[in-house]
């Protein structure tokens, strides 16, 4: 039941020129539905790996058996507090979820849409006026996604590069760098909360410090737990998705043409790309001993529900390794499943669709620039480091 497999150290998981980390992990389906992987977290801990979509649903739904409190961020600092609501279990989870849901509901995101589109257009027009080639990650995907989320938080754009740097160190840096970044982010969030307490504005942090749950204001630790999660969650997930999507379209001109001809298809296509290029691994902690599909899970064990594995399950999706932009009934779980479904999923989806729409309508036929090679990696959030596109 032990298998040499890791989202961090298996072949193709480190920085790989022209890599395809999603295809590399899809091989998990050749094996047992559950196996143990001795080194499958950032800090080298082992996890049980659940490969079938239906079993992942079972785990992610059963919050009584599988807790999501593993203090992933705080533990980097040798502390123990939850990122909220991600690392809270029901019923406390539901209280915070209800508080935050309206801020990121589908209807609320519709209100943000014009500002999102405007941001995409300004960036892309700037790029196309300057050249017939660019590094999509550096010039578009990151500035776009991060500035939308700074806008949401109520922070100015000028610090964008600083924040992206913190995010990179935190998510992809090693040891010391990572701890330093974690400390910097916590201090930043604490300061911001203190400032907004003194001088309220109409931004997200003000909302959080003024909010009440169960008839009482939030504690400092709760405010921090929310602030840190929202900050970290917005830093590279959407940018990464846009990168993988544009890389796919650059390599598959037929599909690029299809979406140019029929932009109405972009919404559905984005769902298929989310399925095929899912980027996060959910981890739960067993609250008790349980026998799961023949595996002896013990209290305290980590259980990994990697979205990139579930979303390539042949029992769930016909030809899972084929990207079919017209795929329907696409019940992918890129935003996870169950009560912890990604709070920002509606915003993320709109950002991705708008980015693709505006990119395709403003940039002519593009391909990966000759003699350049995108570098991909696996790990905590799958990603793509550079993507030089050319439309000369």
């Amino acid at each position, binding site marked *: 039941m032990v298998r040499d497999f890791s989202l961090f150290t298996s072949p193709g998981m480190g920085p790989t020129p022209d890599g395809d980390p999603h295809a590399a992990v899809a091989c998990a389906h050749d094996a047992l539905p559950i196996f143990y992987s001795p080194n499958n977290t950032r800090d080298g801990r082992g996890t049980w790996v659940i490969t079938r979509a239906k079993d992942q649903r079972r785990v992610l739904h059963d919050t009584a058996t599988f807790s999501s409190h593993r203090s992933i961020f705080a533990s980097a600092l040798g502390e123990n507090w939850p990122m909220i609501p991600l690392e809270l279990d029901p019923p406390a989870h539901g209280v915070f979820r209800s508080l935050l849901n309206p801020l990121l*509901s*589908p209807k609320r995101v519709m209100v943000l849409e014009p500002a999102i589109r405007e941001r995409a257009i300004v960036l892309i027009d700037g790029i196309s006026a300057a050249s017939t080639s660019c590094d999509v990650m550096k010039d578009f995907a990151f500035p776009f996604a991060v500035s939308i989320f700074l806008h949401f938080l109520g922070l100015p754009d000028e610090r964008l590069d600083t924040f992206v740097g913190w995010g990179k160190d935190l998510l992809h840096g090693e040891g010391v760098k990572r701890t330093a970044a974690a400390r910097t982010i916590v201090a930043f969030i604490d300061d911001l909360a203190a400032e907004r307490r003194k001088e309220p504005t109409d931004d997200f942090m003000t909302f959080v410090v003024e909010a009440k749950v169960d008839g009482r204001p939030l504690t400092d630790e709760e405010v921090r737990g929310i602030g840190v999660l929202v900050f970290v969650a917005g830093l590279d997930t959407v940018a990464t998705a846009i990168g993988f999507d544009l890389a796919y379209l650059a390599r598959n001109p037929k599909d690029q043409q299809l979406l140019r001809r029929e932009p109405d298809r972009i919404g559905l296509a984005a769902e298929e790309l989310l399925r095929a290029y899912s980027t996060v691994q959910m981890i739960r902690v067993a609250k008790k001993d349980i026998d799961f599909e023949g595996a002896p899970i013990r209290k305290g064990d980590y259980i990994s529900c990697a979205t990139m594995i579930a979303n390539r399950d042949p029992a769930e999706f016909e030809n899972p390794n084929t990207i079919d932009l017209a795929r329907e009934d696409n*019940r*992918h779980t890129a935003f996870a499943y169950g009560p912890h479904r990604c709070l920002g999923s*509606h915003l993320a989806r709109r950002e991705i669709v708008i980015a693709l729409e505006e990119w395709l309508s403003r940039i002519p036929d593009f391909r990966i620039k000759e003699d350049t090679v995108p570098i991909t990696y696996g790990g905590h959030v799958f990603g793509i480091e550079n993507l030089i596109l050319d439309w000369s």
Partner: protein
Amino acid sequence: MRIIVHRDKCQGHARCWAHAPDVFKLDDEGYILPGDIEVAERDELLATRGARSCPERALEIDRAFDALLDRFLFNQACGGFNT
């Protein structure tokens, strides 16, 4: 066609709403409103797509209801409820 809504399973993905906003109504938090949904014939295709996109399987398409309705209407046409 009727769609049975398992409200307790809904986790607010809003995939149903994305396909058919006129059929599936969400509350302010983005979760589906409780109560089964009668779908008009012209909305059936989109409603079916919406229901089939729900990752939580919170929406069940009730075909038995269609058959029942057919039989009822047929019998009415024959002038009564004789089976």
